[in-house]
């Protein structure tokens, strides 16, 4: 695993445009749910400091992959993609319209830089495991696969098929990021990391607003096992 410096990675993505105005263009007067804001910090740290992806390398086999499994968290995702130059900023002015390429859930065939189409929960981790296996089978040892999920999404049993298998085969080029905003109807407070570690993953649970803590966690894999970052975000905290 080649780890580039944070400075280099940020430079690859170009200077980040301020996200606030971009989000406002997407919001267009609507109410955003907490899911939009709870993912924003993780997305910023990933795209500013961790992921080796630029608009010029969206088809490069050696790029890192970011898979948004919780596909409803698109507003921040679209804003980040626009800020980084993957999509034109003026696309943000028309989400969901008949001619828009930006829907309520992202479509990889419509939006440059989007690795998977998602929306139905519980698909990203399986696709991510397959992507990690495909890279490994082709000797591509540099790229890493990051899958962003939500704590409620972990209700879907398909995730647990992927968690158990990725741990069993030591899928070391896979990182899951779980946004824990305490939204699962029958969750397990504080137990998210344990669901992964019992299957042989390494885990880091951090404050989902703390960029430096997120960066350390997102780059904290040990190189021999899959890694999970639980980003805890609580309303009003």
């Amino acid at each position, binding site marked *: 695993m080649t780890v580039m410096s944070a400075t280099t990675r940020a430079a690859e993505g170009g200077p980040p445009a301020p996200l606030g105005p971009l989000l406002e263009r997407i919001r267009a007067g609507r109410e955003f749910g907490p899911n939009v804001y709870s993912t924003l910090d993780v997305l910023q740290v990933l795209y500013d400091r961790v992921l080796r992806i630029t608009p010029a390398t969206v088809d490069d*086999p050696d790029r890192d992959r970011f898979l948004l499994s919780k596909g409803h968290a698109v507003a921040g995702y679209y804003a980040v993609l626009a800020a980084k130059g993957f999509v034109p900023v003026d696309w943000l002015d028309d989400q969901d319209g008949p001619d828009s390429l930006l829907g309520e859930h992202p*479509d*990889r*065939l419509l939006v440059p830089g989007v*690795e*998977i*189409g998602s929306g*139905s929960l*519980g*698909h990203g*981790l*399986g*696709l*991510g*495991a*397959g*992507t*990690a*296996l*495909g*890279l*490994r*089978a*082709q000797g*591509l040892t540099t790229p890493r696969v990051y899958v962003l999920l939500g704590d409620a999404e972990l209700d879907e*049993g*398909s995730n647990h*098929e*992927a968690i*158990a*298998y990725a741990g*069993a085969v030591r899928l070391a080029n896979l990182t899951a990021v779980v946004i824990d905003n305490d939204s699962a109807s029958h969750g397990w407070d504080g137990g998210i990391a344990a669901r992964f570690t019992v299957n042989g993953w390494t885990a880091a649970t951090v404050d989902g607003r703390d960029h430096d803590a997120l960066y350390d966690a997102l780059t904290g894999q040990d190189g021999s096992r899959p890694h999970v970052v639980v980003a805890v975000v609580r309303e009003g905290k």
Partner: protein
Amino acid sequence: MMMRDAFVDTTTALLAEQPRTALVLADISAALFAPAAGRHPDRVLNVGIREQLMVGVAGGLALTGLRPIVHSYAPFLVERAYEQIKLDLDHQGVSAVLVGIGGSYDRAAAGQTHRSPADVALIDTLAGWTVHVPGHAGEVPALLRAAVAGDGPAYLRLSTLGNDRPRGTDGSLAVVRDAGPGAPLLVAVGPMLDAALAAVADLKVTVAYTHRPRPFDAAGLRALAGAEVILVEPYLAGTSARLVGDALVDRPHRLLSLGVGREELRRYGSAADHARWHGLDAAGLRRAVSAFLEAGR
């Protein structure tokens, strides 16, 4: 040799010949692929008894440029993992070759859990799929090789049932028995051919065969069909009726669609027993075809 053995042999060869080929399993047939797994541990992936993951992993492999073959019993492959087929393959704009065994009632004594008469109807809800239903193990290698060499989505439906010899066609309707111009046309799919031939042996009925019901050979049907068409399919009755109707939309015609019934019989026994109970043995087909032709006189 059984179709499943032909599948294992051909897939094992493809894995050695083509570094782009990968195989994803959910325990079923894993022992048969142990030699291939030993030689290609990164491309023979047994995820355990996890069918959703099996198809999801195939989608991920395809996203990196590999050509996955995905295999299990048809009910677990197509029915249990249907949303993964829809979303992890089709919606991502990638494809795989799905290979199902078990057919409609090959393992009749195993009960409803191991039967999949609706598999082709479910695949039919998706766009652009090629469906191969071989009628003999000897047809399997060429069909599998063509499917893997292509880049579109394909489903191979393997069965323990079949005909006494392989028929090499390109998938278009092939006339096996010609009863002359204007005769009723019977289209037999895959393993149904021998029973269909026996059923109409002394009737003036043309019999055509296909092991590729999707895309359906509409042009071939228009060329061969008169005003009476009989479909004999090894899965849900009527699965291809819509396509016959579309092909003959400008022609008055009568259609008899034979296949597996929808109702769960809640009986065990053998595949031959179920063929008889569903009216798909030679005697049952004969009764249905005779009644259909009589009603048109």
